[in-house]
């Protein structure tokens, strides 16, 4: 026993000293570089790809949405195909507020986040006692209901025609949303980066720690005196705020909200993007969204009939060879560069 302990002890003591932090935490969010990197690459893209700002804006807003899914799935272990319910609710809330009362982009974001959070809290409290497939079905059902309500409430939402005429006021009263989409993109990028920072804060909080525990073994959480369901409901609500803000961000930057924003395909696509990028890492959501939408953009232009097939092949390749998503590949590469001691506790999948 002692010899085992000593051997283990020595090895890990060394790793701990060399990195000065837990290998696990370092692996989970690439330490401090992940988020500044997103900001830097985002700004670089602004200068390098001035003709693709509309696409880049969609990527930034979608990444915020996929980030909300990562909170739910990657940190709470909640299997969902209905995250678009919160996205769509947020988008409609922001659009309705803008058209009827106030078109300030920050007010729109707040309205979207509030609506998304509220719908997530109420539906979450109703469905999160279920697990696995049952829960998956219930999340799909919630998405369908939200979409149908939006479809029927024509007076407010425009029904199947979509809600148009959203014309957001200049950001902080200074920066107009120009026709080239410069303001839109920078605004979306800024919101995404702030979203990542807040998400990281939550993930590292006592609450985030408890949620990771729930995702691994809810009964063990009960055995230390916690209530797994209340953690999951609050997490679902928090992620709902993120998803609602992502919806609002789309409404601000595109000026239109359609029924597909709450639809099942959008939920499923977000899941694909997250798995592609890597779950439980936050920045994996950004990588996955950028990869998926970037490839889609390139392929759809060159081969509009078969692009989905290529995406499928790409996804199969990732799942087979990099089960932790693109992010895990990046981390493995980083681990190799920094030396073997970084590879502790790899592959949580």
């Amino acid at each position: 026993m002692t010899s085992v302990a000593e051997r283990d002890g020595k090895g890990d003591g060394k790793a701990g000293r060399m990195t000065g932090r837990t290998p696990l935490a370092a692996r989970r969010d690439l330490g401090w570089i992940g988020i500044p990197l997103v900001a830097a690459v985002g700004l670089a893209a602004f200068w390098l790809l001035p003709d693709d700002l509309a696409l880049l804006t969609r990527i930034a807003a979608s990444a915020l949405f996929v980030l909300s899914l990562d909170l739910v799935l990657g940190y709470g272990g909640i299997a969902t195909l209905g995250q678009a319910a919160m996205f769509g609710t947020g988008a409609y809330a922001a659009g309705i507020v803008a058209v009827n009362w106030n078109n300030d982009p920050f007010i729109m974001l707040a309205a979207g986040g509030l609506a998304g959070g509220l719908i997530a809290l109420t539906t979450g409290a109703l469905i999160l006692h279920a697990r696995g497939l049952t829960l998956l079905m219930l999340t799909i059902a919630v998405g369908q209901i939200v979409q149908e309500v939006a479809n029927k409430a024509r007076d407010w939402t425009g029904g199947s025609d979509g809600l148009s005429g959203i014309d957001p006021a200049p950001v902080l009263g200074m920066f107009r949303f120009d026709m080239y989409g410069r303001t839109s993109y920078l605004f979306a990028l800024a919101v995404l980066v702030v979203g990542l920072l807040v998400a990281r804060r939550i993930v590292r909080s006592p609450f985030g720690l408890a949620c990771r525990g729930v995702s691994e073994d809810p009964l063990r959480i009960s055995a230390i005196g916690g209530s797994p369901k209340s953690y999951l409901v609050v997490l679902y609500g928090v992620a709902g705020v993120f998803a609602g803000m992502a919806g609002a961000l789309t409404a601000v930057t595109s000026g239109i909200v359609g029924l597909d924003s709450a639809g099942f395909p959008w939920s499923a696509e977000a899941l694909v993007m997250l798995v592609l990028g890597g779950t439980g890492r936050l920045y994996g959501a950004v990588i996955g969204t950028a990869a998926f939408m970037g490839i889609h953009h390139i392929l759809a232009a060159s081969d509009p009939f078969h692009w989905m097939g290529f995406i499928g092949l790409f996804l199969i390749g990732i799942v087979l060879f990099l089960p932790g998503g693109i992010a895990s590949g990046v981390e493995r590469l980083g681990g190799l560069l920094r030396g073997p001691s970084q590879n502790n506790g790899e592959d949580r999948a």
Partner: protein
Amino acid sequence: MTALLEVEGLSKNFGGLQVSSDISMMLNAGDRCALIGPNGAGKTTFVNLVTGVIPPSAGTIRLDGRDVTTLSAAERVRLGLIRSFQVARLFKSMTVREHLELAVLQRDRRTFRLFANVAKVAGLADEVAGLLDSMGLTPVAHTAVGSLAYGQQRLLEIALALAMKPKVLILDEPAAGVPHSESQRILDAIDRLPKDLAVLMIEHDMDLVFRFARTIVVLAQGRLLCSGTAKEIVADPRVREVYLGSRADAH
């Protein structure tokens, strides 16, 4: 002085099958009691009844004078009735330190702080360091539990239970799955438990039982067969008949 744990007439039937019948026992502060019995004696059922995993058919359970019979398992945990699991039940991807942080935060009901930093919660680091030290886990504090030796996982189970500041601690076969030669470390850790704690250990290994327990309770076929000091139990012919006799031959 009131007993810390008081069980009275505890019974459980599954349909017509009576798995626990009319069990009464009590634990005082500082008690070191072992619960033994042959396979199928109802030891695990008894633990599940006391900790609130399954509801009893009849009987009452009092914790520190308070009737907890109808409370949920989590509520009993919050009142200081803590158990460790027979098979180490831990969060595989979390480090040893994270386990203890979570347990302490949960105990203090500080787990709904969404924007606090775990590393900066007041007093947490010191308390966790103390717990790590008490179980000799400091060298592996940053290791993910999935890659920990099994004996160390058992030690972490005990540390986790201690982190919740128990009044009554139930250890369900704390050395199960640990090679005999290494169970000494587990026993050393149990020896160092706070003196005022009431400890009930469920154990098969008679060496461990005799080294740990000052009193022993014997269950057989869901009933309390007898209880007393280790010496009395060894001398009791009924115990020899149902349990020790056959075990002694097997050794």
